[in-house]
């Protein structure tokens, strides 16, 4: 019984509350917000350090046994997801501190960001299907609010499809949770693992897996359920867009990996096949959408979709190697995607617009920013020495060993389209001469914003230099996700002992 998983959920709850009571924005308050998000990131990295050999930390809320108690289980995958998510969040919080003077900040942005972090940590740490639903809802309700509080009357329209599609997704998820309870008599992952053994081949379980995959695909933005994403994300302020891009859809992918890998037995070839083809379409459509758009934030939003496809393609192989590749791409993407959104935010701050046809000459005007963009963009595209390459290589290897050449081809096309759209941004915004000369600003805020982004850049370069340990860690995580009996045992051994203080029913 380790209290750390519960602490990772409670810490952002308390910082969110303090920031809610301390409503007036001031530099001191921003400092508090940054400090707490960094503390939370450190806690999550500590969790990741403790689980790096495949250990599982688990605790039961209130010392109740399942099905009444809620298990919090942190294995290597969830620990590293929490660590990266909280690092991204800390960077986004720091960025929004520099983005505008304290007096102009919205008082509710910071509490909502911390609430969202709480929901994300709960989603990664939970070992209970219904609690996963609650975590999704906490994250989503915070994101709804973040989406509307700082938007004007035109931007706010795009919140409607976002909210509506997520409501349908939540209803589906809840339906699936109810059906899981009626079929297994429990919602605890470990219990489901134990009881699903005797139900292999039961069509009801196949139906459940399909509904769950559908609900998570809506949250992750898989084509054809993606339309809410590329219109709503660009309306966000850059710091929030970075957080959404690095976090929200990734929780959906995490949930798919967890459910297909851990919770349900690997006995649904039809579902995996369908998921793989949907992912293939997603990779291509996302790439095509990115190439077609003209604004940096639009391109990046379509990229999210394409990258989701690239993550789910190897995962749908349902092999150890496929999961390793999916997890590595997922981790890499969380960091790179949010830093690209932040770079887009700096471009927006310099030019007042991020429409590619109107900007240019940034290579000369701010070479530092150009360098950051080059590292992140070509890392995302997967050019060889950079960190994105290794995930793609593993995915390629996993695909070829299973003879899924159609999926491999779709992944390749998606990767090439990503590269093309990144080159498009590079050519128009950075390399080409400006249509109108870039305003020469001596604003120190821009330097601070760029310095903030370089934190994430250092993380990306660290993944490049430490590619070996990263790949090893993702192998450990993939092995942990697919080790169903190990997961069930580590949770169920908590039950039964140390229950003296538990209240009466």
């Amino acid at each position: 019984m380790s209290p750390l998983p519960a602490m990772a959920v409670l810490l952002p709850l308390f910082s969110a509350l303090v920031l809610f009571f301390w409503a007036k924005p001031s530099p001191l308050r921003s400092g508090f917000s940054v400090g707490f998000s960094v503390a939370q990131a450190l806690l999550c990295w500590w969790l990741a350090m403790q689980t790096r050999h495949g250990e599982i930390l688990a605790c039961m809320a209130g010392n109740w046994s399942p099905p009444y108690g809620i298990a919090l289980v942190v294995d290597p995958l969830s620990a590293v997801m929490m660590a990266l998510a909280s690092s991204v969040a800390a960077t986004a919080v720091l960025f929004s501190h520099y983005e505008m003077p304290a007096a102009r900040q919205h008082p509710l942005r910071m509490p909502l960001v911390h609430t969202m972090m709480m929901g994300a940590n709960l989603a990664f740490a939970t070992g209970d299907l219904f609690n996963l639903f609650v975590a999704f809802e906490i994250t989503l309700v915070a994101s709804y609010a973040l989406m509307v509080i700082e938007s004007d009357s035109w931007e706010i329209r795009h919140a409607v499809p976002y909210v509506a599609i997520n409501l349908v997704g939540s209803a589906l998820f809840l339906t699936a949770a109810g059906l899981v309870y009626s079929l297994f008599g429990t919602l605890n992952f470990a219990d489901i693992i134990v009881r699903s053994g005797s139900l292999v081949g039961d069509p009801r379980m196949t139906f459940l897996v399909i509904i769950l995959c559908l609900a998570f695909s809506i949250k992750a933005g898989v084509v054809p359920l993606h339309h809410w994403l590329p219109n709503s994300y660009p309306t966000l302020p850059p710091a929030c867009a970075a957080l959404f891009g690095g976090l929200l859809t990734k929780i959906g992918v995490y949930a798919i990996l967890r459910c297909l890998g851990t919770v349900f037995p690997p006995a649904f070839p039809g579902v995996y096949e369908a998921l793989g083809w949907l992912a293939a379409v997603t990779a291509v459509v996302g790439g095509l959408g990115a190439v077609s758009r003209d604004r940096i934030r639009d391109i990046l939003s379509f990229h999210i979709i394409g990258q989701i496809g690239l993550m789910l393609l190897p995962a749908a192989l349902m092999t150890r190697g496929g999961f390793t590749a999916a997890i590595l791409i997922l981790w890499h993407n969380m960091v790179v995607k949010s830093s690209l959104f932040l770079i887009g935010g700096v471009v927006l701050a310099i030019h007042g617009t991020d429409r590619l046809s109107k900007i240019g000459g940034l290579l000369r005007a701010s070479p530092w920013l150009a360098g950051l963009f080059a590292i992140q963009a070509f890392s995302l595209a997967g050019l060889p020495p950079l960190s994105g390459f290794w995930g793609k290589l593993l995915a390629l290897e996993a695909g070829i060993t299973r003879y899924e050449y159609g999926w491999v081809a779709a992944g390749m096309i998606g990767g090439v389209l990503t590269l093309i759209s990144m080159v498009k941004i590079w050519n128009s915004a950075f390399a080409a001469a400006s249509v109108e000369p870039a305003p020469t600003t001596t604003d120190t805020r821009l330097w601070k914003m760029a310095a903030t982004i370089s934190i994430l850049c250092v993380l990306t370069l660290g993944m490049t230099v430490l590619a070996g340990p990263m790949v090893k860690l993702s192998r450990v995580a993939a092995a942990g996700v697919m080790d169903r009996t190990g997961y069930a045992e580590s949770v169920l051994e908590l039950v039964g002992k140390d229950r003296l203080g538990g209240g009466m029913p």
Partner: protein
Amino acid sequence: MTGLSSPILRASSTLAFFMANTLSLYLLLRGHHAPGGGFIAGLVTASSVVLLGYARGPEKFGRVLGADPGLIAGIGLAVAGATALVPILFGRAALEHFFWILGNNGWSFGTALIFDVGVFLVVVGVTTKVVASFAASSCGLPALVAEEERRYSSPSEEPLEGTRAN
């Protein structure tokens, strides 16, 4: 616009408020063993507050409780969260609850009551806030009272009502 406010409603609402809250307190205290609890008690209290708010008119609705309902909800969340945190500090599981029997006169106390009080405050605060904002906003008044406007909105935004509405 005070369409709902009639003298009879105004006179009887205070009485109804206290009667409802007696019931609510009863529900809150018995919640550990019997049907009831913080959520149900919170809803009873919230509906009594809504009744009081409608009787006093939308201008005063946001301050019927004498304080910002949002802050009440925040305090409730902090109390409920503290019951999760405090057992961890004493080396127990998060949200673990303890239960004592006080003497032999049938009285007992469980720490779950503290959690219930937190839930109670959250439900009262959030419900009152939501209904009060709707009531004020649909009457063309600003949805938040001036103090809340300063607390919860950025300096660059304007209240929707009064500028563009109606």
